[in-house]
């Protein structure tokens, strides 16, 4: 910030760089300091605000850390059973095709218990958006191994590190659903720096806008940290995420306008 700005200058509208979206409620968030959920919520709220679709948006919350998302977004929301959000969203969209419908799910919810619902909603090409927060761990239940936990990564149920021989490999479900004809837009982003926040916001906006095209499902994966579950400080966790999660879960678009992007 410019050192020459006085307090009186700071409150001037033209110097405003960030504000809470009116689509967010006043409720105090339960997320751990440094967690990416709050930022992801704010991004979704900002897009709903900017598109002026608060009255036309229905969100489905998962089981996991984001179960209480309905306390933070000032829109109509349904709280699903673990993993079932895409099934709820399917019905909501088919019964009210003119509405904007999204699910917000963690890796345990979307890529373990809800794998069938995820894959089949994607494969049917439901005109919904799925926002997928991947932090490689079960946060809410206290840091257990997730389907996305990296090889050798420690968790409370892989205390000596994920042994892939015994526990299987992490699942890149985003790459998997990108193969399906029903997905129209598949991307992987993050929210740990302002640059990535801007990229994620563009992706979220595109996922909402795509619903009007009726060409299939949009999935935005957001690689995030779980500093509590990873037993790190927020800063350490973000660094660890870039060094370890990004090589396995590289950020960037995977499928655009129904076409797979070639890897080079």
């Amino acid at each position, binding site marked *: 910030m410019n050192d020459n700005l006085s307090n009186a200058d700071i409150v001037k509208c033209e110097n405003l760089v960030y504000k809470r979206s009116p689509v967010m409620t006043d409720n105090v968030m339960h997320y751990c300091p440094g967690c990416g959920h709050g930022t992801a919520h704010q991004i979704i709220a900002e897009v709903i605000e900017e598109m002026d679709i608060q009255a036309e948006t229905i969100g489905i919350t998962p089981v996991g850390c984001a179960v209480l998302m309905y306390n933070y977004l000032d829109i109509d929301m349904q709280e699903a059973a673990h993993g079932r959000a895409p099934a709820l969203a399917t019905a*909501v969209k088919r019964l009210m095709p003119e509405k904007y419908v999204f699910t917000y799910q963690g890796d345990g919810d979307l890529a373990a218990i809800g794998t069938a619902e995820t894959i089949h909603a994607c494969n049917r090409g439901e005109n919904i958006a799925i926002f997928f927060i991947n932090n490689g761990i079960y946060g809410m239940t206290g840091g257990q191994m997730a389907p996305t936990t990296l090889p050798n990564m420690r968790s409370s149920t892989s205390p000596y590190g994920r042994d892939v021989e015994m526990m299987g490999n992490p699942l890149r479900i985003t790459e998997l659903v990108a193969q399906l004809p029903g997905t129209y837009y598949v991307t992987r982003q993050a929210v740990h720096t302002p640059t990535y926040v801007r990229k994620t916001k563009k992706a979220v906006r595109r996922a909402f806008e795509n619903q009007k095209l009726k060409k299939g499902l949009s999935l935005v994966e957001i690689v995030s940290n779980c500093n509590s579950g990873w037993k790190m400080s927020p800063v350490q966790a973000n660094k660890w995420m870039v060094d370890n999660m990004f090589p396995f879960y590289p950020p960037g678009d995977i499928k655009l306008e129904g076409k797979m992007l070639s890897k080079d």
Partner: protein
Amino acid sequence: MKELKLMKGNEAIAEAAIRAGADGYFGYPITPQSEVLEYLMAEKPHERTGMIVLQAESEIAAINMVYGGAACGRKVFTSSSSPGISLKQEGLSYIAGAELPCLVVNVVRGGPGLGTIQPAQSDYFQATKGGGHGDYRLIVLAPASVQEMADFVELGFDLAFKYRNPAMILTDGALGQMMEKVWLREHKPRMTEFPAWATTGKTPDRERNIITSLDLDSARQEEFNLKLQAKYNKMGEEEVRYEMTDCDDAEFLLVAYGTSARICQKAVQLARKKGIRAGLLRPITLFPFPKKPLKEMASRLKGILSVEMSTGQMVEDVLLAVNGQVRVEHYGRMGGIIPSPDEIADVLEHKFTGGKNYE
């Protein structure tokens, strides 16, 4: 327009739902109920009324689609048979916990496990005592004819919306597969206005609507449990439905629902030919159970025989209702076997008036 048709029970349910103004059906194939989904797909209700039909990837997905649709205030339903209904129990618990109206049809087959595809009544406990986790109940309707299969679709929806509670039609493979003539009601238009609690999009004139079964505050969760119980008690006062046949002078009472009740109607006639003054009480609502008429009749009866195609599940509710005032016995056939009227009349004779021991 009202129409008379010859239909299978499963088809009657499907056609009745279109005519009752249902908004959506989400199903998954399983014998002996697949005709519900097949009929709806063939009938294209989207063109007739705008109702949507979707074959889900599993029974679990289907019931959760019902959850999502019900949360939008829509008239939605699903159907399955016993193993599939077991898979739906998680969803039903959430739907009951979120206080959403919906209709679920269970065309029961014999169990446990994969069991058999033949008719049975062995899901009574699951249907009437909750089924999934937590303290909740379903409104349970037990049709005994193809006509009632059709009629109870609308009744089930009405009760579900009245109480914001899931309702179940508990029928069996015999009623699902048999063909009978059925009067179909004229088309009722689909809803155009939705309940105030529905998640239809937060307009500026109202607070946001949240559909959830979660409350981490113990005091509030207990309060919610008490609220549900009060709702179930109200159902017990206002929604009990049953039918009595030849009960005025009866000394011996058969209690049976659904397919068993049809057979017991004939068994009552056969017993009376033998000189046994028999009557039949047919519970139509299994939850709430017709406790009161049983309790009132108990002191003047010499015996009650609960007849079920199970090892004896409803008999426990009969025992609770009469509270020791009269001897209660159970007779059941399992594994898809339907008892004959002669068999039931003989059992009644021998259990209560001596003779051949049927134990």
